């Protein structure tokens, strides 16, 4: 299964190497890595909806595969308390050509941002607060409708 939801850290380079494996015929690998920015927050806790999260991520992968000819897809999303600089999400796509790899990678992130049941609690100097959803993310996701 190419979808993983986990508390543990992971090595994005290892995932990139899997996508670029010599025997899969891929000519193009596009990837995205989301990180906890450290400029104004002390930590970030990601809550999720176990069960629904995996279903939604798998549905998003299936949707991407139905839209573009993809050789491989890896989606990893972490939950729990994360410190600045830690990885939150990795999305990587292998395809024969770069147009499909770029489009599918961006699509996966846009849909994940608006459809995967995760919620971010930021710890700042003012105390903890839940991050508000951004209309911009909805706009980006709707580009693919």
């Amino acid at each position, binding site marked *: 299964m190419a979808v993983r939801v986990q508390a543990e850290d992971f090595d994005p380079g290892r995932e990139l190497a899997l996508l670029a494996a010599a025997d899969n015929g891929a000519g193009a690998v596009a990837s995205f890595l*989301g990180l906890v920015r450290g400029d104004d927050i002390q930590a970030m806790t*990601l*809550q*999720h*909806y176990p*069960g*629904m999260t995996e*279903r*939604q991520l798998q549905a998003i992968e299936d949707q991407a595969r139905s839209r573009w000819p993809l050789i491989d897809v890896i989606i990893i*999303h972490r939950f729990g308390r994360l410190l600045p600089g830690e990885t*939150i*999400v990795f999305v990587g796509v292998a395809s024969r050509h770069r147009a499909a790899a770029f489009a599918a990678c961006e699509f996966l*992130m846009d849909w*994940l*941002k*608006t*459809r*995967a*049941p*995760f*919620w*971010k*609690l930021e710890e700042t100097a003012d105390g903890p607060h*839940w*991050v*508000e*959803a*951004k209309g911009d993310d909805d706009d980006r996701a709707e580009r693919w409708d």
Partner: protein
Amino acid sequence: MKLLYFAWLQSRVGLTGEEVSPPASVATVGDLLDWLKTRSDRHAAAFADADRLRAAVNQEFAGLDHPLRADDEVAFFPPVTGG
């Protein structure tokens, strides 16, 4: 019926979820939301602004008019912010 709450809804209701048996008149997600407001002052405050909440039935997103059955798993939460 199994209910689950996430993000700020948990702290407002004071629960991460609860097992409920709504009356037969509760036929949709919207009905359930209105009925939940009657359970306590905290529920009333937490569910006051339905526009700020989203729902899922059996782990799929669902609108207010989505029909409900007694054994459904229903979740309420603010718009997602992962990624």
